[in-house]
């Protein structure tokens, strides 16, 4: 047992900080990682196959179950993809409300990431502060559509529900409070010697590597690549708002932390701009009760909190899609894990899993 060989340990699928049922096989030399292998599939539900046996509307709630901490974003991607296939466009009012809810979801998802990431590195307290704010966002979701997590907030062609009476006021109040709350998290972490020691220089991913792996989202931007679909191919109502895309320089864990913190600030600004002027009008485009898109195919991607979530849908002209392929950001970002983790210590493994920000529901689908 105490030979001088490498030690192979199994992290997961039941491990406190693999963020779900990820199993990582680590080959260790002492405490240094010399190789790793991610074993996934414990949460595979065959979401793509299910799509082939459901109508377009019936399948919409299923995408909420992929990235269950950012269900609104997944839903937006799917609805817009089908709309593209149907060649309809959601009315302006629906698009603005979609933008607000999606940005709130981005903040909620990043808050969950921040809390659990800090918890993995041993800072217990930020988690509860993050959940306090996340709760406010979930309350807004609940008031809007009755669900907190798997919301199914949008419909193909627009929205099912009109924004409730105090919607703008709630969002505004949240955004006003949130400004000082981010400062609270930063006080605990950003300048903390231990936090910097644990994150700086850990899990470096160069820009070239990041592009080669197909990594997207904050992980890509922290490596210094300024790529954000909200700017590159604006969807919903993003072209109407001013916001910055934060980028990092070295692509280490600390940079990814800073990028996500800044993204929360930018999302807050987008929400504030959006509630200023929500256009009046219908919330649903003219789509029939039975959706029969013309035969053809479409790929539509949006910037989810974790990266590019893309839907490739093939229609054969019937009520059910012929094939749906989903490009999940967590799954593709996870591929860079081995590159990031090699040469580091066991303690860094959990920091790196946390910093990629995966959700196993989306990795396994």
């Amino acid at each position: 047992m105490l030979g001088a060989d490498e030690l192979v340990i199994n992290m997961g699928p039941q491990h406190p900080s693999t963020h779900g049922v990820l199993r990582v096989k680590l080959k260790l030399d002492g405490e240094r990682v010399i190789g790793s292998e991610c074993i996934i599939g414990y949460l595979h539900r065959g979401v793509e196959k299910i799509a082939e046996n459901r109508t377009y509307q019936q399948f919409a709630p299923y995408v909420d179950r992929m990235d269950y901490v950012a269900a609104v974003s997944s839903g937006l991607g799917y609805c817009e993809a089908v709309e593209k296939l149907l060649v309809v466009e959601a009315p302006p009012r629906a698009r603005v409300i979609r933008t607000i809810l999606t940005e709130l979801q981005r903040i909620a998802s990043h808050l969950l990431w921040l809390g659990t990431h800090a918890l993995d590195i041993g800072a217990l307290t930020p988690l509860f502060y993050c959940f306090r704010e996340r709760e406010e966002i979930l309350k807004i979701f609940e008031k809007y559509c009755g669900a907190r997590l798997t919301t199914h907030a949008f419909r193909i062609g627009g929205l099912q529900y009109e924004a409730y009476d105090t919607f703008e006021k709630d969002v505004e109040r949240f955004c006003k409070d949130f400004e000082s709350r981010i400062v609270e998290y930063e006080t605990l972490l950003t300048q903390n010697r231990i936090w910097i020691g644990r994150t700086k220089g850990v899990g470096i991913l160069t820009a070239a590597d990041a592009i080669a792996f197909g990594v997207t989202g904050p992980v890509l931007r922290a490596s210094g690549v300024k790529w954000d679909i909200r700017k590159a191919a604006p969807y919903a109502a993003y072209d109407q708002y001013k916001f910055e895309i934060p980028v990092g320089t070295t692509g280490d864990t600390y940079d990814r932390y800073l990028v996500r913190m800044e993204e929360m600030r930018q999302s807050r600004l987008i929400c504030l701009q959006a509630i200023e002027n929500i256009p009046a009008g219908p919330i649903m485009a003219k789509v029939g009760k039975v959706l029969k898109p013309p035969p053809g195919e479409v790929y539509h991607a949006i910037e989810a909190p974790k990266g590019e979530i893309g839907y490739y849908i093939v229609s054969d002209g019937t009520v059910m899609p012929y094939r749906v392929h989903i490009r999940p950001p967590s799954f593709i970002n996870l591929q860079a894990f081995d590159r990031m983790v090699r040469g580091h210590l066991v303690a860094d493994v959990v920091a790196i899993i946390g910093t990629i920000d995966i959700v196993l529901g989306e990795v396994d689908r």
Partner: protein
Amino acid sequence: MSAAIQATIEFVKLYWAPLLCGVVIVAILPLIVGYIVLVERKLMADMQARLGPMRVGPHGLLQPIADALKLLIKEDIIPDNADKLVFWLAPVLSVGAALLSLAGLAIGPAFQIAQDINIGILFVVGISALGIFGIVLGGWASNSHYSLMGALRSSAQLVSYETAAGMALVSALLFTGTLNIKSIVEAQSKEGIWYVMLAPVAFFTYLVASIAETNRAPFDLPEAESELVAGYMTEFSGFRWSLYFLAEYTNMIVVASVATTLFLGGWLRPFSHVPWLNFLDFVPTLLMVAVGAYCIVRVPKQPVRVQQMFMMAVAGLCFVVGLVLAVPVLVPIAKPFYAGIHGGFWFIFKVSLYIYFFMWLRFTIPRYRFDQLMRLGWHFLIPLSIINVLLVGVALIAGSYFNLHGWGLLLVTTPAAVIALVAALLILAAEKEHDERQQPNTASDFYAG
């Protein structure tokens, strides 16, 4: 025959008090530890904007008892591949060492189990260090990778930080010239100044090293739950696990007591030799009355009648303790009990503050990585503590040359502390330079330490 009876009586006479004391401590210590855990959870909840345990008893006051009961009746699991004997022995060893080291401590001039050990501090430190065997053996016997890594980390950590802690203790011991616990406190009483003032750098070193020794955050790597599941405790459950838990918290009490005795004046009241500050004798009473009053204020808020009564009982207890603390100050006949009763209060008060600091730290900052922890120990704390011993020694020689005593000693120890601080900053600067020269992304080989 009668000689044997005589000997037995002699034996009982000589040892009954320590025995009784020992039994009482072993019996109530789990309860005390339980309530320390409750306090920790409540503090954590307070810092994290939530309530903490609220269900069992008013404000969760009975939670520790419920927890203990649950742990006792849990199924006892020993892994198939574990080394049964060592697995059984390890937690016992850990908790035994922790409890044994309590014996040397003096809670006030009146309460000490093992009277007059002339190597007092050495005994306490030595025995509490033995507890590491429980952790190493437990980790090894579990036959699990996580446990083994936790045990290895723990032993490396203890070896590294025990050195720094020992050096810090030496700095303070230089002032007393004795290892006897009572004499140490009496020396501080005679000088009229606590050694934390005379050797602040040593106190700081001991503070950091004691956190690492007790495996508390930010040095809780042996049981880092996010990396090693639960480190050496991974395979332990139920009562065995609770023994480890008991040992950990007892160790906390031990290191806090050692720091209190050596640096914070043990059972002495703050400024015990300043007559015009004698009104401080009322502080303990007022504190207890305040806690009791708060309980009474909270009574109407309790939902159930039983909980209201419980709250009243707690308030009553506080008042009784307050009264006990007030009597020796007010009633002349009870004067002889003053030192014992108030000494106990101040000692426990200081230990509580020390433990509070531990908890505060745990909720505030993240965890060190193992190589960083080792580097902090070997490259910073140990050199600093060695330099500090030298400086304190030089300061003492200078002090005796100028014939300085008490507060006067500050004239020579303060420059020594300043020089030590400068040394600390120099070490940190050298570390930083070394870091920058090193390739990023290559941690030093800490097992070579």
